[in-house]
C-alpha cells in the first residue's frame, strides 16, 4: 500500500524534501531583498527602520520572509534532530519542543512586523 501511495517509511513521501526546496527557492530573493534593503538604509536607528518597515509592501515582504524562513529553518533543524537524537522518546520530545520554539519565534517576529505596520498608523 505504501508503495502504491508513493510514501516511504517516514509516511510523508517527498513532502518534506519538496517543501525544503520550494522554501529554499523563495528565500533566495526574500533574504537578498531584506539584506540589501537594510544595508542601503541611511542608518539603522529606530526612526529610520520603523519608517522603512511600516511601508505596507516592506511589511508584507518582511512577513513573508519570516514565515518562509521559519518554515525552511524548521524543516532543516527537524532533519538534524532526527539524525542525531536516536532514542524515540527523546526524538519525539525534542521535535515537539522544536516545533513550539519555531512557532514562538516565527509568530513573535510576524506579530512584531504587524504591530509596526498597523500599530503606528493610529499614532
Amino acid at each position, binding site marked *: 500500500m505504501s508503495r502504491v501511495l508513493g510514501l516511504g517509511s517516514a509516511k510523508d513521501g517527498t513532502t518534506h524534501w519538496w517543501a525544503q526546496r520550494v522554501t529554499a527557492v523563495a528565500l533566495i530573493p526574500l533574504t537578498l531583498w531584506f539584506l540589501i534593503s537594510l*544595508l542601503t538604509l541611511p542608518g539603522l536607528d*529606530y526612526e529610520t527602520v520603523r519608517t522603512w518597515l511600516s511601508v505596507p509592501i516592506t511589511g508584507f515582504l*518582511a512577513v513573508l520572509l519570516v514565515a518562509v524562513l521559519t518554515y525552511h*529553518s524548521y524543516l532543516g533543524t527537524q532533519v*538534524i534532530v532526527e539524525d542525531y537524537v536516536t532514542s524515540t522518546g527523546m526524538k519525539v520530545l525534542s521535535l515537539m519542543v522544536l516545533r513550539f520554539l519555531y512557532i514562538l519565534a*516565527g509568530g513573535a*517576529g510576524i506579530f512584531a512586523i504587524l504591530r*509596526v505596520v498597523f500599530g503606528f498608523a493610529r499614532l
Partner: protein
Amino acid sequence: MLPRKRRPRLADAKVLSRRASVIGNSVAAASIFKMPARVRPTSPHAGIYRWQIGNTLSILHRVTGAALALGLIALSYWLVSLAGGPVSYISAARFFEGPVGLIVLFGWNFAFWFHLLNGIRHLFWDAGRGFERTPRHLSGWAAVLGAIALTLCVAAWVWPRLS
C-alpha cells in the same frame, strides 16, 4: 543425544533473507542464518573516510544552517524590540553593535552567504546537473570563495557606517 539442527530450507531462507534485508543490519542478518554475529563495516565511517571538499562542505552546510536557525531567533528578537518602541530597540541595537554582537553578526554574515551559495549548488543537483567531478569541485570552491568574498564585502560596507 544432541538435537539435530534443522537445516534451513529454501523457503525459510527466502523469508528470512527478506527480513534480514529489511532490518538492514549485519548482526541481525547473521543471527538469522545461525552464523557467528560479526560486526561488518556497513558504510564509509568517519574514521576511515578521507576528508575532501564534498563532505567538508556538506558538514559546513548543516553547521551554517544550524547557526542561521539561531539567527532567526535574533531576527525575531530585533523585530520585537522594534515593535516595542525606541527604548527596547536601543537596548537590542546596543547588543548587536557591541563586540559580542558584531562577532556573532559577522559569523551569521558568512553563514548566510555560504548557505545561500551552497544551497544553490544543491538546487542544481536536485535538477540533475553538476554531478560530474569537475563541476562538483569547481562549484564547491566557488561557493566557499564566493561566500568569503561576499562576507568581506558586506563587512567592508558596514564597518565605516558603524557609529
